[in-house]
C-alpha cells in the first residue's frame, strides 16, 4: 500500500493547542490565538505532551488528515475501516482510496497491534511532507530527520 498526503489541518500542533486552551480559558478565540503565537512551539509542545499524558485525546480530533491510498487492497482497507470507525474511506478506483481521519484515530491505529504498520506509513509520509513534525515527535517518538 502506498500512502500520500492530500491535505492536513494547518499548523496541527497549534490547532490542538487552540482546542486545549478553549477548554480552560474564558478568553476570546483571538486572545487565545494571540497568546499561542506569543508563547510559540515550545508551549504547543507542552500542551500536547500534557494532553497525551492525561489521555485527553479528544483535543487531537481537531487535527484532521486526508490521504490517498494506492495499491490498497480491499481486505486491508476493510480491516482498517472496520477497526477504526471514525475514519472515512471512499473508493476512487481499483485499489485506490481516499481516506480521512483525525489525529486521535491515527494515535489509536499506531497503538494497535495489527495496524501499526499503516500508521507508521502515514507518519513517515507526514514527516516527508514536513507536516506535524512536533506532533510526530511527541505522539509517536518519530523525529522528522531521523534518517
Amino acid at each position: 500500500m502506498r500512502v500520500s498526503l492530500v491535505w492536513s489541518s494547518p499548523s496541527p500542533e497549534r490547532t490542538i493547542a487552540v482546542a486545549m486552551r478553549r477548554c480552560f480559558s474564558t478568553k476570546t478565540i483571538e486572545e487565545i490565538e494571540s497568546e499561542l503565537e506569543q508563547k510559540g512551539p515550545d508551549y504547543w509542545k507542552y500542551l500536547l505532551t500534557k494532553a497525551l499524558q492525561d489521555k485527553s485525546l479528544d483535543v487531537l480530533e481537531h487535527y484532521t488528515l486526508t490521504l490517498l491510498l494506492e495499491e490498497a487492497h480491499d481486505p486491508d482497507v476493510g480491516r482498517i475501516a472496520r477497526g477504526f470507525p471514525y475514519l472515512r474511506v471512499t473508493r476512487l478506483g481499483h485499489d485506490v482510496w481516499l481516506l480521512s481521519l483525525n489525529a486521535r484515530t491515527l494515535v489509536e491505529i499506531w497503538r494497535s497491534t495489527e495496524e501499526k504498520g499503516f500508521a507508521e506509513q502515514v507518519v513517515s509520509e507526514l514527516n516527508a511532507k514536513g507536516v506535524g513534525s512536533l506532533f510526530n515527535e511527541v505522539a509517536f517518538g518519530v523525529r522528522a530527520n531521523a534518517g
Partner: protein
Amino acid sequence: MRVKLLYNTDIGSVRRVLTNNGVAFDADVLLDHVVYMFEIEDCSRVTTHQLIRHRVVSYDQESQRFSAATREGVVTPPSVSSNEVAYKAYDEALKSVYSAYEKMVAAGVPKEDARYILPSAIKTKLVMTLSARSLMHMIWQRTALQAQWEIRELATTLHGLAKEATPELWTKILER
C-alpha cells in the same frame, strides 16, 4: 453569539486527486472528506446541549470546573426580554442563583461543585470540528422552523460560513 471558521479542508487539493484518478467532481464524495473547524462564543448551554446531540462531531468546550461564572454571562431569550413580567422574574432568579454561586465559591466550595446551581442560560464557548456531511445534517435539522431560535441562528451562521468558504460544495448540495 459569535461564530468563526478556524479552518476548512482545501477542496482544490481533494479535487486534484479526484481528477488524477478520473473521478468526476462529486459532492457526495467530498462530504466525507471536507472538514470544518469552528469556534462558537457566547451561546447558551441550552443550545450546546442541543448541539452535542449531533454525535459524529468533535467538541471541546469551556469548562465550568475551571472558569468562574459571571452574572453578565447569560443569554436572555427574546420572549423573556420583551415581556416585562417574565424578564423581572428571570432577572430576580439569576441574581439569586449567582449570589448563591459566589457565596459558595467564597466559602471554599470548588467551582466544579458550585456550578451545579448555574442556569442553562449561561454563555459558553467551544470549538467543534466536523465533516461536511455532519454539518449538512446539522444544518438541515437545526434550520428547520421547529428548531429553537438560538440553535437556528447558530445553524444559519454555520451554513453561511461553510458556503462562503467552500461555495462549490454547498451549491452542489443545495442543487440536489
